[in-house]
């Protein structure tokens, strides 16, 4: 039995009158990579944005149901606290353009006004960059702007920025959709290394990617969780007909 890090219970999300998620229940296993797949517009991005409450940026968004992180109800906690425990990496790399690589990694602390000594900062920066497999490439240019890096490096910088906060869960929202194949395989390798220290939820509409890296997979269709299970079984013997049709390319 896998231990669970994040438990989603009968979770629905609405934008105005429009119901985007329909009573989704899901247990995300600890220190595993869980892929969330589905065609565009099926609600997979909304689902992970609800996990760190980023959907609240949209004015008429509302939700029902519960999400627990280690027994703690996310919707009864301050979103600021939630987001420090659940890191997020977006589709397009978005390093802070006015900051150096070093400052980007430590941004979570600096922007939150958490004071650290120089030694502590150096340690966090090096550790986070090493975990994101970026240290060797940037250690000579830590004080240059992050925007000088290539797309794949920028995305790894964003991953190390999220890791620096020491999150329990890392949400990756199609992290390679803006990258070339080489940078993509780099990021995929990195994700697989990371699962020892952090639980990962990966949204992707690239089925091959989900098959390559994930331990568990969830298939979301029209706001509904159609199927969830170990990736090995899901990709070889899906239970639901809709999953099978999606995986064989009949729609999506």
């Amino acid at each position, binding site marked *: 039995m896998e231990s669970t890090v994040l438990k989603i219970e009968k979770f629905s999300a609405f934008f105005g009158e429009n119901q985007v998620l329909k009573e989704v229940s899901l247990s995300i296993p600890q220190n595993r990579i869980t892929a969330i797949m589905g065609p565009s517009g099926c609600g997979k991005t909304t689902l992970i944005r609800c996990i*760190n409450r*980023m959907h609240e*940026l949209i004015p008429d968004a509302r939700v029902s149901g519960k999400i627990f992180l280690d027994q703690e109800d996310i919707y009864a906690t301050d979103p*600021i*606290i*939630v*987001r*420090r425990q659940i*890191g*997020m990496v*977006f589709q*397009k790399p*978005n*390093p*802070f*353009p*006015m900051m150096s690589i070093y400052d980007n990694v430590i*941004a*979570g602390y*600096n*922007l*939150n*006004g958490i004071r650290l000594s120089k030694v502590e900062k150096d340690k966090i920066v090096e550790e986070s960059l090493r975990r994101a497999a970026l240290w060797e490439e940037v250690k000579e240019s830590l004080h240059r*702007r992050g*925007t000088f890096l290539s797309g794949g490096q920028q995305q790894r910088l*964003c991953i190390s*920025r*999220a890791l620096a*906060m020491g999150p329990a869960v890392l949400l990756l929202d199609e992290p390679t959709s803006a990258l070339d194949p080489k940078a993509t395989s780099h990021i995929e390798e990195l994700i697989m290394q990371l699962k020892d220290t952090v639980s990962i939820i990966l949204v992707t509409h690239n089925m091959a990617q989900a098959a390559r890296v994930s331990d568990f997979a969830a298939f979301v269709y029209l706001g509904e969780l159609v199927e969830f299970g170990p990736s090995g079984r899901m990709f070889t013997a899906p239970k639901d007909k809709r999953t099978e049709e999606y995986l064989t390319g009949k729609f999506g």
Partner: protein
Amino acid sequence: MKDNMKEPSIRRRIICDKVFKIIIILLTFCSILPMLFILFFITSKGIFVINWRFLTQLPKPVGEIGGGISNAIIGTLMLIGIGTAFSVPVGILAGIFLSENRKGKLASLTRLCVETLQGVPSIVIGIIAYIWLVVSMRSFSALSGGVALGLMMLPVIITATEQTLKLIPGSLKEASLALGVSYPRTILKVILPAGVSGIVTGILLSIARVSGETAPLLFTAFGSPFMNLNILKPINSLPLMIFNYATSPYPEWHTLAWGASFVLIILVLGLNFFIKVVTKRWKVQF
């Protein structure tokens, strides 16, 4: 290729292209001609008046030769300082509000007010400052003049801030919020620094715009022949001095007015040059 060039339709095209290029260059030249003319005229009349004494001495009474414009230079700087101190915080905050709330009643009302304020004639702004401050404090003052200039700077700063912040990609805000940074801190430490070049440009532009304003100062700052550093007393400024001296019947005062015009134009040119530097060097590449 060579044969093609000989074809009449292509030849016509090439000639047409050249003619239009020449027309465009001519028109561009015509549009900058007035500006070159003004610069030349003021420089030729004003530059001979400029010397150390002109910049550092106080004006002399009628009949005495010489005298300077030091009080007007200091006064202009003080008026701009007061206007900036009051309009920059208000303008930036209003600009943030507008860029963060693109819809909504208060936002559209604010936008309407900003546009209206932009169109209010400067003399009317002067009257408003007169009624608000001069009448209630029973004295012409640098403060009232500064507030009048600040009111004129306000719409420029608000619009510049709003437009700059609107162009900052939303992904930057998301990146900050996703790190658990609170909304106010995100605005203050991520959004504002990313837009600093546009905002500073707006501020400098508004200063360049009001530094030559005379009308709002006529019955607020009022003008004074003395050096004054008290913001509650009347104060001189370059445009006021130019207005007073140029409309006087004394030839030596006319000369001083040319000199003051030259100083004012150099100030505005310098500001515009500085704006170019700021936009270039502080530009944040997304």
